[in-house]
């Protein structure tokens, strides 16, 4: 029964994919979307049962479906591992996934390729579920590439838009760089353990040397950096906003991009053995958190601000992993899934209301016109900014507190600064979108409308989760959430709790920081709107750098993309000129060889024969002259002949010539 339920979780959306993908054109959109969200809803129910079972028994269970590959002594099963970590991920993925599917019914209504959309979304669910459920690295990898594929297909959903097609390719190729690293990690694991199953690998992890553990951890990290859009491979995520908004919410905020965090936590046994890798993870996360937040300060596209915010929040999760706060990382992953999905979907509701407008410079004053969306977006903003007692407060505060109490002061400072910036840019976004004077184009303004219930409903659920989602993790590091996850995340040196006084002090500091960000945004975008422009004008170079995202895309283009294409052209030239040149050279040599032999025969061989004939002719003529008929000529010849004859005889007898004798 348990096995069946576990298998059904990915199998249901898969069935929907096959039905919608193969027969989708035969039936109406209503059937297609019901299959789409219905299958995910049942998966969610199955996940709840599986979760309850795990909660009760408290043991990890494995379910094998079939043997996928075996080659040589390598056997790989399609099998699932159900443990607390998987359960949390299952609930988040199917739960948030279900809400976003439901929302999509309203959002995608009337779009071309409606069935295609739900097919891809369900395929994404299948891949993501394989990713979090797999009991070995290769099933994780199928899911990993599968979500990448769906991301590719959905970013390029509006395929006739050149920018969308380009963004899709970019996302896949950049992810592939990370995937190559991930593959190498898999090979390293196989070489060292002769298996790819988690349980066996982690049980034997102790025998690894620190160097090997570090190598595996770093290779995995490369994969995680690609998928979770961290420095230096984050550039694909902002472009991925070309996809429909539910896609941004589901794939590029709530679930897929957190796969890297899941992978690191899943492999925490290996990371615990590799301090260098841990430090790398922490700093990659910390720097990304800050870096992306600074870009987010000045962006004008509502979805892009949220995209940079996602990159930044993922940085926090990496930071948490890097300092050993694995439970906190997953906790933040969960709360982030709630409030970021809420923010994206509310942004979608805004875009929907404004007939597709995404530029916040053309928004403003929407609070009165779309009050529901406004309230929901505000809840999301409060949650992400870390305002007490919303979900984001607990999870983010826990990460910062962990950094402080474990003496990572530099990372703590970065995290605090990042939190301030987060609060600022999110309230900036809120003020520019919903408050102040309306800057909406008047054609668009006529059509502003609140979204339908099918869209608002899921948002309300997400808003409730964003408010209460932090409570399972209270008190910090000792909450229900942490106890449940402990079997899957216990690392080294986890146990020690800070004093109550310190905890309260850190919480207060975090709250003050968040309020400061809010305050500054309030001042710049509500109290004195002209001040923001003055500030920007005051430091034009800094402003331009931020606005152009530190020119990182341009730099990559110059350093990687163009040289790669040029290298291709160079190879092409080499192929045509040098290699083909040699081949044609051989051809020419053969050709000229035959020409030469023809010529040789014509001129040299025939020539020789002719020369011989001619010489004969000539010599005959000269010999003929000898027969002159004059006696003195004959006499002279006889004397000469005799002389030669005698000379030869002398040489024969004495071994020396006449001249030699004379000289002697």
């Amino acid at each position, binding site marked *: 029964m348990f096995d069946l339920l576990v298998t059904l979780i990915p199998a249901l959306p898969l069935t929907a994919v096959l039905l919608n993908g193969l027969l989708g054109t035969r039936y109406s959109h209503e059937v297609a979307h019901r299959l789409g969200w219905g299958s995910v809803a049942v998966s969610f129910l199955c996940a709840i049962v599986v979760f309850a079972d795990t909660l009760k028994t408290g043991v990890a269970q494995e379910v094998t479906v*079939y*043997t*996928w*590959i*075996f*080659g*040589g*002594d*390598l056997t790989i099963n399609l099998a699932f591992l159900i443990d607390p970590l998987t359960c949390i991920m299952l609930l988040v993925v199917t739960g948030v996934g279900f809400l976003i599917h439901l929302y999509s019914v309203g959002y995608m209504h009337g779009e071309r390729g409606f069935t295609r959309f739900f097919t891809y979304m369900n395929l994404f669910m299948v891949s993501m579920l394989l990713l979090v459920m797999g009991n070995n690295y*290769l099933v994780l*990898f*199928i899911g*990993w*590439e*599968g979500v990448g*594929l769906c991301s*590719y297909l959905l970013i*390029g959903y509006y*395929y*006739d*838009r*050149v920018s*969308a*097609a*380009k963004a*899709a*390719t970019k996302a*896949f*190729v950049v992810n*592939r*760089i990370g*995937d*190559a690293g991930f*593959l*190498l990690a*898999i*090979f*390293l694991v*196989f*070489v060292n353990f002769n298996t790819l199953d988690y349980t066996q690998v982690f049980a034997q992890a102790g025998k690894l040397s620190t160097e090997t553990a570090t190598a595996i951890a770093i290779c995995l990290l490369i994969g995680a950096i690609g998928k979770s859009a961290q420095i230096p491979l984050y550039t694909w995520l902002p472009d991925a906003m070309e996809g429909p908004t539910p896609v941004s919410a589901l794939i590029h905020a709530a679930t897929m991009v957190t796969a890297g965090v899941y992978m690191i936590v899943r492999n925490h046994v290996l990371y615990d053995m590799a301090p260098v890798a841990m430090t790398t993870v922490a700093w990659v996360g910390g720097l990304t958190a800050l870096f992306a937040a600074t870009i987010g300060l000045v962006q004008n596209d509502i979805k892009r601000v949220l995209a940079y915010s996602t990159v930044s929040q993922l940085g926090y999760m990496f930071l948490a992993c890097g300092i050993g706060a694995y439970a906190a990382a997953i906790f933040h992953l969960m709360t982030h899934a709630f409030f970021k999905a809420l923010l994206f979907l509310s942004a979608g509701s805004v875009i929907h209301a404004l007939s597709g407008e995404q530029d916040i410079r053309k928004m403003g004053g929407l609070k009165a016109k779309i009050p529901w969306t406004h309230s929901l977006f505000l809840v999301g903003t409060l949650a992400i900014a870390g305002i007490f007692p919303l979900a984001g407060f607990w999870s983010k505060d826990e990460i910062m507190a962990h950094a402080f109490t474990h003496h990572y002061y530099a990372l703590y400072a970065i995290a605090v600064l990042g939190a301030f910036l987060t609060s600022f840019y999110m309230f900036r976004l809120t003020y520019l979108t919903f408050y102040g004077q309306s800057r909406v184009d008047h054609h668009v303004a006529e059509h502003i409308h609140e979204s339908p219930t099918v869209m608002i409903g899921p948002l309300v659920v997400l808003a409730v989760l964003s408010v209460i989602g932090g409570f399972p993790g209270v008190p910090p590091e000792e909450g229900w959430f942490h106890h449940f996850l402990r079997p899957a995340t216990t690392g080294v040196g986890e146990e020690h709790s800070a004093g109550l006084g310190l905890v309260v002090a850190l919480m207060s500091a975090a709250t003050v920081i968040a309020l400061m960000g809010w305050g500054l945004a309030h001042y710049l975008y509500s109290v004195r709107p002209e001040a923001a422009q003055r500030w920007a004008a005051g430091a034009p170079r800094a402003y331009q750098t931020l606005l152009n995202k530190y020119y990182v895309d341009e730099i990559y283009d110059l350093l990687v993309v163009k040289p*790669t*294409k040029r*290298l*291709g*052209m*160079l*190879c*092409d030239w080499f*192929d045509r000129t040098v*290699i*083909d040149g*040699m*081949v044609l050279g*051989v*051809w020419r040599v053969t050709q000229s060889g035959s020409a030469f032999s023809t010529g040789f025969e014509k001129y040299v061989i025939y020539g020789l024969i002719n020369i011989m004939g001619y010489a004969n002719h000539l010599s005959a003529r000269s010999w003929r002259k000898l027969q002159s008929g004059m006696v003195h000529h004959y006499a002279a010849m006889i004397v000469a002949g005799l002389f030669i004859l005698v000379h030869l005889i002398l040489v024969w007898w004495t071994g020396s010539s006449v001249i030699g004798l004379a000289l002697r």
Partner: protein
Amino acid sequence: MSDTALQTSGFPWLTAVVFLPLAGAVLLFFVKDAAVRWTALAVALADLALSFPLFFLYDRSATGMQFTERVAWIASPPINYAVGVDGISLPLLLLTTLLTPLCVLVSWRAIETRLREFMATILVMATAMLGVFVALDFVLFYVFWEAMLIPMYLLIGVWGGPNRLYAAVKFFLYTLAGSVLLLIAILVLFFQGGHTFDILLLSKAGYSQTLQNWLFWAFFIAFAVKVPMFPFHTWLPDAHVEAPTAGSVFLASVLLKMGAYGFLRFTLPMLPDATAAFTPIMVGLSLIAILYGAYMALAQADLKKLIAYSSVSHMGFVTLGIFALNAQGIEGALMQMINHGITTGALFICVGIIYERTHSRMIADNFGLANPMPRYATCLVIFALSSLGLPGTNSFVGEFLILIGTFLWNKAAAVVASLGVILAAAYLLWMVQRVAFGPTAGHSALRLSDLNWREMTIMVPLIVLVFWIGLFPNPLLKVMHTSVDHLIEQEDQEDRALARRDAREMRERREARDGHVAQVSLKANNK
């Protein structure tokens, strides 16, 4: 003598499978014009149906050749008609019989002149290719090997594009060099391996290191041209560009496998020491091919050239797996040979389909096809994803096994090969982005019709295979296991046997020398 290794079965399966297309080709000249297509298709399908039971009848646990037949052909020198298949050749045989009907279907409307001769050429080609995979006698092998070139030459030379003479000459030059060296190598083996052309006996004979080294390079040129390995690859893009679609499919899907098959059937078992000695060079060339082919593919503006160069890159993976010399590598290489046959063949068919509609193979002329041709775009995306090795599709299984085999041999080589995986995503998706996506092209795109029933009939089996092998590769892997294990054991055993023999020879030589020295000193004493 070798009959112990060859169990002869009742029905001559292999002879029937190999020569049925040839008989069909003859038959074609006796049917009415209108019936040519259907006759050719019926023959090709009959051959597929005939070969299909082999997959189930094949005994997966037995080593050695199965379905063997042996008839004396020429008494002196002893040349036999000897055929048989093992886990290495059977999948390739089935791939060939599968692709033949598809090639007939692909040419249904595309070929307008000399249709009867064209279909006959396709069928003769099939017989020659099938013969290469089943031949167990070196002379028979060589006959099929050379016979294969004639129909290919005709396909390019008669039904080819405008620049066909250039392509044909290049193709001819490369293959000629290879063939001559192969013939010499065969003759040397005959005299050194016990005056027999029996491939199985020759594989067991054992040769000195020096001889192995010479034979290795002779074989290398012959097979490397076929694979093609860098730097013997430049005939490939031109041949593909000029060949009709069916020719391209045969070329990419089957002909290129001949080289890799040669390495597996001859070089590895017959020349184990030379193989071990030159493995680093082979791996190096494979890595160059992987990256070079990928970079070349990035630079191409012609779809056929792009896919041709992607073949160079993919076949680099195959040779990489072969010369990793372990079970994972070789099984991966075999898988990848089949996968490349399916996927790249399909991609060439995709190019052919679009060429029939727009009369251009240039990427710049074909864009935004997803709107007028959604089914076509779906197929193109599926095969591109398969080609770049997405998990769940066929190529992933092969590439993964190859890479893991390579990693076991040398970590750095696997890292370099992984770069090829990244580049594959780049050139294939960039191609898809430009061809399938983007705004629909003005006047020409609107008239484009989507895939018709015939084209779907070609695509669907290939798509099914892409996912079937990707999700359930084990039935296919099981066919290969025993033979590959046997190959590797043989490799090891021969290594050891040879080492023993070398040691013995050295000892004897030393003893002889010592004896001589002793005798000389004895003489001196006597004096």
